[in-house]
């Protein structure tokens, strides 16, 4: 009824965006905030040490190991170029380039 231009919808939209912004910032700040209030044990420290690698490999696994040929080959190319050049930019070019070419020709 009100349409996208109505005042009411706009206020609701802005409040929704404000709510999204609030909960998102809470997730960003919450990890450090909670960690400052936790008692550390050696096992907890070991967990913390393992956390970055486990999170990053989880971010990448579904895409790199999707079972599709372009992604799999590109993942290998990325790793090889990283080992060879020890730098992120050429690795990214190799990955993106490989995926782009293989998707185009396949």
């Amino acid at each position: 009824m009100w349409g996208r231009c109505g005042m009411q919808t706009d206020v609701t939209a802005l409040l929704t965006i404000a709510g999204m912004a609030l909960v998102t910032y809470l997730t960003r700040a919450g990890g450090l905030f909670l960690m400052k209030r936790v008692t550390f044990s050696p096992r907890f420290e070991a967990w913390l040490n393992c956390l970055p690698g486990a999170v990053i490999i989880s971010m990448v696994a579904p895409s790199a190991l999707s079972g599709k040929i372009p992604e799999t080959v590109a993942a290998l190319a990325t790793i090889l170029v990283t080992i060879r050049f020890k730098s992120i930019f050429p690795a990214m070019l190799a990955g993106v380039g490989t995926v782009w070419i293989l998707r185009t020709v396949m």
Partner: protein
Amino acid sequence: MSLNSDRESGQADDGVIFSAGGFWVGFRQSIPIALSVFAYGLVFGLLARQAGLSLGESVIMSGLVFAGASQFAALGLWQAPLPVAAIIVTTLVVNLRHLLMGAALYPWFSRLSPARAYGSLFFMNDESWALTMASLSRGEKNSSFLLGSGLIVFISWLSATVLGRTLGGVLQDPSLWGLDFAFTAVFLALLVGLWKGKKDILPWGVAVAVSLVASHWLPGKWYIILGGLAGSCVGAVRHAD
């Protein structure tokens, strides 16, 4: 960049610093990532236009929320009457992974003043966080890396939102150019640097297995949370044995 700014306070007991030099290293090293983020910002702007968001609403969302996956999810729900609670809860769930990422920064960020730490964390995104973890794990003590990296990604995301919302279909599908793989490639490159040898095989293997299963069966970003928790817990248990 000057010696002066490097010596500026922020010095902690164990040498964690927060200098202009570190800020610019983070800023520069994130330029390639910012370009890929730009491509996705164009897509976000286009979809925001199609979902009926005004230019102002799109810019406010990208500027205040600044979390791509949750913003795309919100657009999927953006229909009158707005399901306000559903959008906010979805945003929270999609962004819960930030809790783990913030926790991983604790050894360095707990040494910073609250203003620096919690200010920088506003700009934390997956890619900037991963680059920062790689830099800090290499023994570089400069915690301002995250702010520099986050800021260029922020600028890129915000300006691309404006451009995509204004011009419409500049770039409909970044995957046609392989740009969706840019983030995967960056994370893979960082993993090569984080690899510490055989002891990583089990926790990383568990993380991969759990994230693959979770990405198949669960929506959103649960695969990152569950894979990250499973892998790190296995690592912790193994360590204590």
